[in-house]
């Protein structure tokens, strides 16, 4: 059974600081997604990572994928309050269904 684990589950950080969220998964997969969810809102797609070594960046967020280690990271650079949200990684299985991590709630304090 595929398991997806995120670390940490909660992260409180100061504005301007850097931090990394980790996503480990237990079996092979050829693609991984990162989503953002604001309170009471739905999921917003951030990144799609399709191959080993893939790196994507959007603003202060950068995601990478190491399929050999079954690890993806979401790196936050110089955090700002607007980045406060819950971030999910999700691994694609079989027919395309997503298996989600537990989510990492990020709180950026001024």
């Amino acid at each position: 059974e595929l398991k997806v684990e995120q670390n940490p589950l909660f992260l409180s950080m100061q504005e301007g600081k850097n931090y990394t969220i980790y996503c480990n998964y237990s079996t092979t997969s050829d693609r991984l997604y990162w989503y953002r969810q604001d309170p009471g809102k739905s999921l917003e797609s951030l990144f799609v990572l399709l191959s080993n070594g893939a790196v994507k960046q959007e603003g202060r967020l950068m995601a990478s994928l190491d399929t050999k280690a079954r690890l993806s990271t979401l790196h936050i650079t110089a955090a700002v309050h607007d980045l406060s949200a819950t971030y999910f990684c999700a691994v694609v299985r079989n027919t395309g269904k997503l298996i989600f991590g537990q989510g990492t709630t990020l709180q950026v304090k001024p």
Partner: protein
Amino acid sequence: GAGVSQSPSNKVTEKGKDVELRCDPISGHTALYWYRQSLGQGLEFLIYFQGNSAPDKSGLPSDRFSAERTGGSVSTLTIQRTQQEDSAVYLCASSFHGGQPQHFGDGTRLSIL
């Protein structure tokens, strides 16, 4: 419409009642997914439809849950004899094909009294 549309946005019902949740996917998307988000279980896959193929029902938690997709477009998720543990946000997503990036609706927040 431009995005995945779900209705109702909120539903409160009494334990034991049946409920129907509706999802209208993005036009042209052949794949449709239902997920459930709850505090205790996180985000869970429920069911997947791809074109005219038999749906992947492997995530449905019990036989009280069923879903159909009519005409390859609108989908309805039905929960019979609701229980309090069914309280959750039910999210629908669609994609151009299975395995392609999924676009999520705003969800239906279901509360069972």
